[in-house]
């Protein structure tokens, strides 16, 4: 019987329905960031007013009836507090009305799991890159199993960095794909490159890039920023690949939609004879299907759902993987 999942950690209110590992609906309403970025209270209000219609349209496109739902999953975190709370409220209301379990899901784990699922990978190393998060993770072999974070950003997420740069450069919409578009055909200007072992930092790079905007063309700065940031991610990931000896690499999260990042990671993986995979863009952007997928796995594992509530800084390595 189907499981419904609600995602609301950032600008997307997403509702997905999964039945036995099969995604049968994945609908979303997205707050338009325009040039101003995300104002948490305003985004939460947007989610609240779109919750009902998004849930209805997901149910309609899944072909399942609301009474068939076996459980409701939602994003516990990480994410923006006001937005997470709307998701929790919608999910708990639905679960209480139907008398089915309410299952909290970590957002990052959901991104990784859905990519792993559609790429048919067994035990990959994952580069999870989005607005707020940038982490290199893989499942531990010791029990209890959990996702181990091998490397991560020491300051801001790579997506956040690209968004802030896009706003400074007055690109619209102010996010990574606009940076990628303007970067095409640019030439390289020197940028700071900060990798510490398997960790990396983007704040210095962002400061440098925005300070160069007056003196250089936006095209050249965007190109150099993107090449530098993705090279850093790739290098740290390569180190983790060799450390963990994984033969599969995937990337997931909003920034995994970047074709340049995919190209670089693919080339790196090939040089180590590893398989590289990435999910469709609809599953890399925030979505409800990934939440439903993990909620179903948790439910089938039959070992408890964890505490409900939200945690703005919920870490993937805090989740015990019971499935």
């Amino acid at each position, binding site marked *: 019987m189907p499981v419904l999942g609600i995602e609301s950690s950032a600008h997307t209110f997403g509702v997905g329905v999964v039945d036995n590992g099969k995604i049968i609906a994945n609908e979303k309403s997205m707050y338009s960031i325009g040039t101003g970025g995300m104002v948490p209270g305003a985004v939460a209000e947007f989610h609240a007013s779109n919750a009902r219609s998004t849930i209805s349209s997901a149910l309609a496109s899944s072909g399942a009836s609301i009474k068939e739902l076996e459980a409701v999953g939602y994003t516990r975190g990480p994410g923006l507090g006001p937005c997470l709370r709307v998701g929790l409220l919608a999910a708990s209301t639905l679960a209480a009305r139907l008398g089915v379990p309410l299952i909290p899901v970590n957002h990052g784990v959901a991104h990784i799991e859905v990519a792993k699922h559609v790429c048919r990978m067994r035990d990959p190393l994952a580069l999870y890159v989005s607005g707020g998060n940038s982490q290199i993770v893989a499942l531990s072999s010791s029990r209890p199993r959990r996702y181990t*974070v091998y490397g991560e950003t020491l300051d801001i997420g790579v997506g956040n960095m690209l968004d802030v740069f896009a706003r400074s450069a007055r690109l619209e919409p102010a996010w990574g794909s606009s940076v990628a578009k303007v970067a095409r055909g640019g030439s390289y200007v020197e940028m700071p490159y900060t990798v510490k072992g398997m960790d990396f930092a983007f704040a210095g790079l962002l400061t440098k890039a925005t300070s160069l905007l007056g003196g250089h063309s936006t095209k050249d700065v965007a190109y150099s920023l993107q090449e530098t940031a993705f090279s850093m991610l790739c290098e740290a990931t390569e*180190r983790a690949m*060799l*450390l963990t000896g994984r033969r599969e690499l995937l990337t997931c999260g909003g920034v995994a939609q970047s074709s340049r990042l995919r190209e670089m990671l693919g*080339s*790196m993986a090939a040089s180590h004879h590893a398989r590289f995979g990435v999910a469709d863009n609809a599953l890399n952007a925030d979505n409800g299907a990934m939440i439903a997928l993990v909620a179903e796995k948790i439910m089938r594992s039959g070992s408890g759902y964890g505490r409900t509530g939200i945690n703005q*800084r919920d*870490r993937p*390595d805090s989740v015990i993987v019971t499935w």
Partner: protein
Amino acid sequence: MRVIAEGAEARIYAADILGIHAVAKRRERKSYRINQIDTGLRSQRTRVEARILGIAAAVGVDSPRPLLVHDCEIVMSDVGGTTLRSVLADNELDENAVARMMRAAGSNLGRLHHANIAHGDYTPANIVVAPRARLAVIDFGLSEVTQSIEAKAIDLLLMKRSVDPLRFSDFLNGYRSSFRGADKVIRRLLAIERRGRYKTRTLLVTDDAP
């Protein structure tokens, strides 16, 4: 030349310089990086590493001597011996000998920190027990010249995560003995360990799992 080790960044080859046994570390070109980033990075890191190897020797820390630095390659003396990691794993030494080694490892790091070098990957895998139980430090590939207390504390944290607590306390005794600023760094270590991200995280850069 024969490849003897392969890391994420570089390959290590066995080399022979005028009959002297040496090793060559070459930072290989990365296909995923554009040339302008890749070339500059590899040669700059190679120069920094060679310079740090020189400083380490000057402050009395046994380490490979840079013999030749060329482009993205360092040819350096071979310190010989086996890693402290495998010595600890073999479990054949008596406790006193192990304590002595851990103190020496700590004292070496203290000397490096006093000279404002953060090693970046200071674990038993990068400490070599050379003939006559002398300890040498290898792989300065992630090292930096820095006054940062944080970077130095991360060196301690890596070691702490790699050995058992008793050994780490021997290590700290050695560290204090050679570095006057030790307590400040140890205090930072405790602060770092209280941060959420370091409660659950794995920090190893080279695989030190026993």
